[in-house]
């Protein structure tokens, strides 16, 4: 197997020609998002997200630490997205390429900077103790859309995660085991969802600069489309129609009105996904509660 994935000139021409006719190689419509399969693990905060061939896993963990000195009222939240050669041999171990860096930064901006997780609620004793929440994103299989999938995975995992309950006693903190007291969830302020668009110009980039060519854009590009794209745009939006982040790093210049159009499309997708995630979490919660009730009734019988 070749290390990098290269597309031949023929293949490239074919894919772009197909796009001009509104057909994508994987049979989707131009503005069709891939089916997102989310499965929740047995542990709190463990989520497996599959989008087409792309597979991302997220684990949330927490511990009690001292807060930053200049932010005594806030907890800590870190997102780690390191890409290993497991996702595809084209990623090198230990060396971050520009693309990888962009993925990491965009996910971080989308989730952390948009204040999706209420950091102040993580504070236990101001200036002395706070929760540190850590999201480890493991990228297992690469077929485009790492940003979108990572964002969904982190946001689902954060909503699913429950940390141990605590009691503050003087300056000390008592951590209650899951068996002692039911665990508490994190306070999530909103659910940002990333939607990525790839832009193509069938007549070459120069034509676009002249301003008379029409670019094509596709939602949620797969790996092949990502490799051939002329430009890329990631819109992070939540259910409240608030744009949290727009990232368009170079590439094809685009019509300002297209941005509006893309944002609209992103909103519809984000709304559906947010509702799907919410439903999934609720179902899981109910199931867990159900098993808990069963345990209780068993002890009552005695």
């Amino acid at each position, binding site marked *: 197997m070749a290390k990098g994935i290269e597309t031949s000139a023929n293949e490239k021409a074919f894919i772009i020609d197909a796009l001009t006719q509104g057909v994508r190689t994987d049979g989707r419509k131009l503005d069709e998002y891939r089916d997102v399969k989310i499965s929740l693990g047995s542990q709190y905060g463990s989520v497996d997200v599959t989008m087409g061939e792309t597979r991302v896993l997220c684990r949330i963990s927490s511990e009690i630490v001292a807060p930053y000195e200049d932010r005594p009222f806030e907890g800590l939240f870190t997102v780690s997205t390191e890409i290993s050669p497991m996702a595809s041999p084209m990623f090198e171990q230990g060396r971050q390429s520009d693309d990888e860096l962009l993925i990491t930064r965009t996910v971080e901006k989308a989730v952390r900077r948009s204040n999706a997780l209420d950091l102040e609620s993580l504070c236990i004793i101001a200036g002395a103790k706070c929760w540190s929440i850590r999201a480890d994103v493991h990228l297992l299989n690469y077929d485009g859309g790492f940003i979108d999938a990572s964002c969904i995975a982190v946001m689902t995992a954060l909503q699913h995660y429950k940390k141990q309950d605590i009691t503050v006693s003087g300056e*000390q903190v008592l951590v209650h085991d899951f068996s*002692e*007291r039911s665990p508490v969830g994190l306070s999530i302020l909103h659910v940002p969802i990333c939607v990525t668009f790839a832009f193509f110009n069938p007549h070459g980039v120069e034509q676009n600069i002249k301003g008379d060519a029409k670019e094509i854009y596709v939602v949620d590009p797969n790996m092949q489309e990502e490799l051939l794209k002329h430009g890329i745009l990631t819109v992070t939006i939540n259910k409240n129609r608030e744009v949290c982040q727009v990232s368009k790093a170079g590439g094809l210049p685009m019509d300002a009105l297209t941005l509006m159009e893309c944002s609209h499309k992103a909103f519809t997708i984000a709304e559906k996904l947010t509702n799907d995630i919410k439903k999934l979490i609720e179902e899981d919660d109910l199931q867990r509660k159900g098993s808990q009730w069963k345990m209780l009734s068993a002890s009552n019988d005695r």
Partner: protein
Amino acid sequence: MAEIEPITFPPAVLARVSPELSLQRHLAIGIRPCLRTFEEFRAVECTAGGLSRYSEESVKDSSVLGSSLVKSGNTTVICTITGGILEEDLPAEVVNEDAEAVNAIFAPEAIEEEAKEEFDSLESNAAVYPIVEVERGRIGAPTDEEMILGQRLYETLLHSGIISKESLNVRVGLRSVEEDGKVVITYFDDSEIGSELGPKRKWQYVLYAKVKVFSRSGPLFELVWYSLLQALKNTKLPRAYIDESAADIKIPVKIRGNFAAVREQYQIICDPLEHDTLILNEAALGYASNFCIIDIDEESRETVEPEDQSMEVDSRSVLLADVEGEEEEASSKKTMSIVVDSKGEELKSVTISGGVDNDQLKRAVELARLRSKQLL
């Protein structure tokens, strides 16, 4: 037609050109390339190194708390121990009387259960944080070998129970100024009064070890482990006291109209002269030995001239103790590294790689035992 003359090399050249062949030819006549016999260890020389601040009569101005200098063959290992003091996060019930009461209300059963179930065999063990540096003529990020050595030292120390957490507790004193302006430092050693006077806080020493290796010749773990233990043996911990004038400060913080009292800050100061010896669990002290097994090929055995047969090499594979040199290290596909405690009763760590059979393992453990006793 030219006749093909066999080429001969001096041993040192052959060793570089074809390490495998050189080793095979040596072993076939019953000797190792380093001229040791099969089960002979290198002599190990060890001194305290003299780097520690307590190494001489008067206390030196140095942050090193213990040191060792180990020489074996061509290799020299220097190990220095430094340290710091960290506040321990105590469970709430130790500090606050009401904590237990609070807990009891919420989960009375859980407390009892916990006491029964939660036994942690590593709970009372402590370790040091080692950094290993193998000099290779240039600087840069640590190599894999250095990281692996560091982690192995840490794990072996933690699991062997040589240092107990208790021995790293800081028994703090209190510095106060008397009415006549004299500064007095009181240490409450064993007296019960002290615990009531002293703060309800606990501090612990954290020890760091820096191990430097010069002129590496063969696997290093055993030497590095030895040097670490030797350095720990002469490690002395400075006494520390709380400066009374600096204790009990509450720093008010004001951000966005909110107030919060930052917890009391104590200033812990190390005594320049007073010090304690670090107590090690002598019974758990164990020394490491490494072995490799080399299969002698048929061809090499046949080349041996009868007069060279100084020693009976009857078995097809031989056990070599204390691997040294490129030839032995490169050809050794079967290796063992064994840590035995000084009494020779318990093993602390055994790593075997390659198809070692039970007889060979038995012999290696026996030799490791002798070696551990000898090194004590």
